[in-house]
């Protein structure tokens, strides 16, 4: 049977000190190579060492020496100390090199060169050196790999979330020339424009912050109630309404945020279909849709699916046994709902209200189409920097107000909902059917849900047909491919296919940006999730907070912050494609973190430990054990970040340029120019494209689920 085995056939057990670390010096060497060989500045030109040697670019030689010599010297020292295994010295020198490089860059600002490829490689490599050395020193549970993941992601978050937001805060304290002017904050912050209460006292209009808060409250409340009615119908109505659930879960994912607003304009605008029809009946044309009512209706249709999903989940989690118990205790249907169902739902209702309110605050697409004279913060911020009146200070103050309102909503959510959730998910489900609703309530819900569905269908019908008729804006419904061909014409030219339609450029850029940022988002998000769930180290909570923070920041705030922060050296990124990718990666990262955390909770931690005791390195464990088991979560994250990147508008409208234009921005511009049909036809194309992506994903995930074997463990299909 088995041949005799001896220890000699395996590598001899390692003795003495822990095995030598060659990776750290490798990264230090990489940094030095970048210093020597790769152009330091963004504009190209000489490498850092060439700059030192006198090939001065646009700055004087002494400046180059002062700026770069300490960085290069510290890096050499870091290489030497990592080679001999002195972790403390390595950490020190790598830290000094990094600190000096950033300090000189920010000190020089616009006077110095912007960090280019050489700087990026060198500083990244030095960050890895620093992280590994810290790990060797015993931080991050003494694991160099975990240290690398945490430090690198942490540095990226600091650079691309906290630094820009901080820059925007600073900009609020600066005058137009960039001088420090604290008195301006008060002037900018406490104005009638922002806080005015005129509309309540019979005056004409309110401040923009009051408008936003008012809109958010109305939309929050109404979409909570609408969502509840829909959730009750779907959850208590049985199989008959299950299809509704599917539609409601898909719509928000594939709908660009201004589509509903577009449909409303087509239906209810001055020359809208329904407006014209009403005129026959004797109701005169008006512009009522432009303003609070229009924005509120558009947001209701856009965000109710979100409250619906949340409340449906909460209803689903209420054990039928509780309601059955109440029934056996002689409670009527009405009493069961009043005393059991409703109280158990209350935390979820508060949650739905706040979530919809936060979405409304951050929404940009609907107000920009419909707001008219009813100004809200998100659009006001945009016009402060986009229009003729470029006023970064004012935009920054408005961004701070918007951020403040959003954080207030999240704070309230934590206070009200954080600990009050009664919903417990246990493995063992009680059998039994959920209680029937009292008759009146059921009919009411059915009526509301029906009206909502009809209205929503009408909006989507307008979008789906509007692009393929002559002029839906004026009621001319003759079928026509003119608008579609305007946007998406393809011609045979002498050199092959020629995409001559005006929309192709932006569509290709969008797909490209989304396709690049989606895998990056998945990697960054899931690595963070892995570190957060699987490893205990000092600062873990803080790291988790860092990774989730960008979720709470409205897109407009991020957009204006990016403009303020990345317009000048050393991090001069505006105008390029990289800033679009970065923006998407760090805005969508929380989605990856959360789906990763949820998926990892399903996978037994001992699998990682078993891998470690079998001599696998942390990277090997990640690659061979964790990644295959996370397959579904990876796919979900990929698709979500892809579709979110395709539909996002609020942040990127600040960052898109004529050269790198995005679909959503292109559509908004068409709307601004009054070219509704083209905007509508483009929206249709976008939605169909994303529906296809979604269906494709479901096919993949469906297969993965078929391969699930054994309880409690997610098994990917082979």
């Amino acid at each position, binding site marked *: *049977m*088995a*041949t*005799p*085995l*001896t*220890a000699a*056939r*395996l*590598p*001899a*057990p*390692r*003795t*003495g000190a*822990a*095995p030598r670390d060659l990776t750290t010096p490798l990264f230090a060497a990489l940094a030095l190579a970048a210093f020597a060989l790769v152009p330091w500045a963004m504009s190209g030109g000489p490498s850092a060492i060439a700059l030192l040697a006198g090939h001065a670019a646009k700055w004087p030689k002494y400046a180059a020496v002062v700026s770069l010599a300490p960085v290069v010297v510290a890096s050499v020292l870091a290489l030497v100390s990592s080679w001999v295994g002195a972790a403390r010295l390595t950490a020190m020198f790598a830290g000094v090199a990094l600190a000096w490089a950033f300090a000189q860059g920010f000190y020089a600002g616009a006077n110095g060169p912007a960090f280019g490829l050489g700087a990026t490689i060198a500083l990244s490599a030095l960050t890895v050196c620093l992280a590994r050395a810290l790990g060797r020193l015993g931080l991050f*549970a*003494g*694991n160099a790999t975990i240290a690398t993941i945490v430090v690198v992601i942490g540095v990226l978050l600091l650079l691309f979330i906290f630094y820009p937001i901080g820059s925007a805060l600073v900009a609020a304290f600066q005058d137009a020339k960039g001088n420090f002017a604290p008195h301006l904050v008060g002037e900018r912050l406490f104005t009638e424009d922002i806080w005015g209460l005129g509309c309540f006292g019979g005056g004409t209009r309110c401040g923009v912050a009051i408008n936003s808060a008012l809109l958010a409250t109305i939309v929050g409340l109404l979409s909570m109630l609408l969502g509840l009615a829909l959730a009750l119908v779907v959850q208590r109505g049985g199989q008959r309404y299950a299809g509704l659930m599917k539609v409601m879960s898909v719509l928000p994912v594939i709908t660009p945020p201004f589509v509903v607003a577009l449909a409303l304009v087509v239906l209810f605008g001055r020359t809208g279909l329904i407006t014209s029809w009403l005129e026959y009946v004797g109701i005169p044309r008006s512009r009522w849709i432009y303003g609070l009512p229009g924005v509120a209706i558009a947001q209701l249709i856009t965000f109710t699916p979100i409250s619906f999903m949340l409340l449906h989940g909460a209803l689903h989690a209420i054990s039928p046994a509780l309601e059955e118990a109440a029934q056996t205790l002689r409670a009527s249907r009405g009493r069961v709902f009043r005393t059991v169902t409703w109280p158990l739902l209350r935390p979820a209702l508060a949650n739905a209200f706040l979530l919809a309110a936060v979405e409304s605050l951050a929404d940009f697409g609907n107000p920009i189409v419909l707001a008219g004279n009813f100004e809200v913060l998100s659009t006001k911020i945009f016009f402060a920097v986009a229009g003729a009146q470029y006023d970064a200070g004012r935009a920054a103050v408005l961004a701070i107000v918007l951020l403040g309102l959003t954080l207030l909503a999240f704070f309230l959510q934590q206070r009200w909902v954080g600990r009050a959730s009664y919903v417990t998910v246990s493995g063992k489900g009680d059998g039994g059917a959920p209680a029937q609703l009292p008759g009146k309530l059921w009919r009411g819900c059915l009526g509301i849900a029906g009206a909502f569905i009809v209205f929503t269908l009408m909006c989507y019908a307008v979008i789906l047909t509007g692009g393929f008729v002559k002029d839906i804006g004026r009621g001319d419904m003759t079928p026509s491919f003119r608008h579609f061909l305007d946007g998406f014409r393809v011609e045979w030219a002498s050199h092959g296919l020629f995409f001559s339609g005006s929309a192709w450029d932006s569509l290709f850029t969008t797909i490209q940006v989304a396709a690049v940022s989606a895998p990056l988002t998945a990697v960054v998000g899931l690595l963070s999730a892995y570190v957060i769930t699987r490893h205990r180290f000092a600062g873990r909570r803080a790291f988790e907070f860092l990774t989730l923070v960008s979720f709470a920041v409205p897109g407009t705030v991020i957009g204006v912050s990016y403009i303020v922060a990345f317009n000048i050296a050393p991090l001069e990124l505006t105008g390029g494609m990289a800033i679009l990718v970065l923006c998407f990666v760090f805005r969508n990262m929380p989605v990856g973190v959360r789906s990763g955390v949820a998926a990892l909770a399903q996978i*037994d931690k*001992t*699998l990682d*430990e*078993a*891998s*470690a*005791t*079998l*001599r*696998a*390195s*942390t990277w*090997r464990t990640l690659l*061979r*054990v964790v990644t*295959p*088991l996370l397959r579904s979560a990876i796919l979900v994250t990929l698709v979500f970040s892809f579709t979110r990147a395709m539909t996002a508008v609020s942040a990127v409208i600040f960052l898109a340029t004529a050269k790198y234009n995005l679909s959503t921005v292109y559509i908004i511009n068409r709307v601004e120019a009054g070219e509704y049909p083209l905007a509508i036809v483009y929206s249709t194309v976008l939605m169909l494209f994303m529906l296809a992506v979604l269906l494709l994903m479901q096919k993949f995930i469906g297969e993965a689920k078929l391969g699930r*074997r*054994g309880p409690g*463990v997610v*098994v*990917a299909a*082979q």
Partner: protein
Amino acid sequence: MNAKVHMNNTAGGVVFERVTKRYNDVVAVDDVSFEVRPAQLVTLLGPSGCGKTTTLRMVAGLEPVTSGRIMIGGVDVTHRAANERDVSMVFQSYALFPHMNVLDNVCYGPLSSGISKAKARELAHAKLAMLGLAGLEARLPSELSGGQQQRVAVARSLVLEPAVLLFDEPLSNLDAKLRRRVRQEIRELQQSLDLTVIYVTHDQEEALAVSDQVIVMDRGVIAQQGSPAELYDAPRSRFLADFIGDANLVTGELIHDTSGQVFRANDVSVPVRADGVPPGPATLAVRPHRLILTPAGAGLLPAECRRAAYLGSRVEYVLGTPWGDLLVFDAGVQSPLARGDAAGVQFRPEDAIVLAGHS
């Protein structure tokens, strides 16, 4: 199974030197020292929360120590990560990779160590054959029975020929019948391959059955360490007497008088052997099967049957006596006592253990 195979001819044992593990303010393992000699099976035994699993995980490198030193095979490994230590672990859940088949699971360790694929397969096949798993290579873990999964986990750990093999409650996911068989298999494997094994369990019977040495832990410290027989026959404290096997515990007083040593409780005195125990407050511990039933009026203590449970091979009685209720295992199953019957109880002086103090 084939001829005896020596695997650990170069490996030493494990030395655990004054190791402390603290989680914030909670001390999980408090200044614990012990040694595991090569080719021995040592069990860490104790109630849940006593620190036994933490101790095992510190040997594996899965928990960093707060202070102290751990040596494996004569090498200080205190600051080495789990994947840099010459140990392998069989987990309570087996932790078989659900997305890999049996062969890939067993090959995982060698491949991680940089061994070529062909060699890794050869090693894996040998171990799988040794554990009677030949033919199951292509199965997924979910397609195996609990006992087979357990053996795959053992094969996966053995394939690296580690200096020390760790078992964390390996039988807790098996049913009672299988448990007895598998623990014998583990013991046979350990003895035939001269493996150095640390084994964690909360089941005292399991510990007595498989171990060369048992280390009983209680609240983060070692309560007692010794061979199974030493622990059973000479527990050093009330906790140990109670924890290992069943014991009747009586609090009373030890008196040295002219006739020798006498244990006295509730006005009943019995002769005992208590060399080295000082006179004064004492606890008497007697195993239930060491108590002998006598007819009423005879014996050391008068007794009345309170409850009787017929278990086939023996009858378990609860008897009311002047010393309180005593548990008695009686092999005379032919004519069991009925509830309310009077009887007497006695025991030999050398069968009772006297412990100083009342706790």
